[in-house]
């Protein structure tokens, strides 16, 4: 029993410790990566909107599209 309790305690200490160490490292690497990316590979700002429209149209077939749109019209009209 003693042993079980100390096992639990140890698990808590090392577990939480490791979780914090890991996520802290992740914060640093992520922040570093973002910095490098925004410095060396800056994004053209206008693109995303144009892109988002195209695939949506392509993936939804016409029939589906009409169904969704009709529903939308109903909803927003009523």
């Amino acid at each position, binding site marked *: *029993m*003693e042993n*079980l*309790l100390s*096992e*639990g*305690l140890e*698990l*808590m200490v*090392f*577990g*939480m410790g*490791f*979780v*914090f160490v*890991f*996520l*802290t*490292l*992740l*914060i640093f*690497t*992520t*922040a570093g*990566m*973002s910095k490098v*990316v*925004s410095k060396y*590979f*800056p*994004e053209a*700002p206008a693109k995303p909107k144009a892109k988002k429209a195209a*695939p949506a149209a392509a*993936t939804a077939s016409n029939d589906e599209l009409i169904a969704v749109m009709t529903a939308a019209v109903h909803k927003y009209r009523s």
Partner: protein
Amino acid sequence: MEKLTQLFTASGIYNITGGQFIMILVGLLLLFLAIRKNFEPLLLVPIGFGGIMANIPEAGLAYSAVENAVHFAVPDVLNALAGALNIASTDPHDIIHAYHGASAAEHTAAVYAAQDSGYNNGMLYNFYTVAIASGAAPLLIFMGVGAMTDFGPLLANPKTLFLGAAAQFGIFATVLGAVGLTAVGVMDFNIQEAAAIGIIGGADGPTAIYVTSLLAPHLLGAIAVAAYSYMALVPLIQPPIMRALTTEAERKIAMHQLRHVGKIEKILFPILLLILVALLLPDAAPLLGMFCFGNLMRECGVVDRLSDTAQNALINIVTIFLGLSVGSKLSADKFLDLQTLGILCLGIVAFGIGTACGVIMAKIMNKMAGGNSINPLIGSAGVSAVPMAARVSNKIGLESNPQNFLLMHAMGPNVAGVIGSAVAAGVMIKFVS
């Protein structure tokens, strides 16, 4: 006439046990909660239905061929099983006990003996073997969840990862609680069971199922039901804790709009996370690897058809089998137990502690940042339960300040909580399996 008796003595009415009756009611309750109360229906409808099927008397849908053979207790068959398992006793209980502790070769011999006598695995047992015992289903769900996750808010404000870390305290505190209850003699959990119970506090269904299937598969039913039920109860469990730990002034804090996060950052993040896992905690590699793989498919923009399938057809198929398989663990003899009660109690404690730690960590971070830039309400989202917990943060925030939209700010800690509990899962698998 003989056939009529045969039909009646094989019927459910004649054979139903009290436990099965209660478990059928539990299954119906889960269906009610899922359908009427909208408790995580995607999982609880299959789990509840699977639970009812698992408790159909004499059908043996949740049992292996050997368990079904033992159930009917034909003397010759019991003899063959005892021989296969190298035990002298032919008492059904002894055989089942020996079966569960058998070596791989004895296990196979017992299966052969059962098959030669005409007994087969139940349907749900087969589903469980393929979906959960193999580890595949929770990993594929995690891949799908990865493909559905937008790490943008997290990348815009990586510090929120701390909130996802803090909220995992609920997991480990619960482990301590479980071993504590065992130490004082109220319950009887070993360290593997305690760890599996703790993971309920991770508020992440597939992680809980994956860890439990490795550490304590006999508790899978109770732990999965607790995990999904409490995730559904997040809007009830969290608000009082959040209000108690924050001041009105803190809840009013408005947060700056998040910066735009570019495509390249989003592509690199899952790769970075995978490499960090590879270097630091290989035991979390299956879970976080599949999660990162799903997310990379989503973000890379060149495999949209795979990403769509991972988010739709594949995750739906796997969810059906996962739910039914979890339901198979709701058979009366595996579920109706004092342990289940303990698991349900500890599970909700885990949720509460996780929520509290998240909020407290957010308060600390806010203090350190000057006291007026981080709304502590987003801390509670660190338990994961995506996206419910983030919505709760937003809702409580709106109550105090109708102009304050916390949703996107809470999505950061929310997805951080998924990573955090997968890391915690890796640590537990490393240490106690």
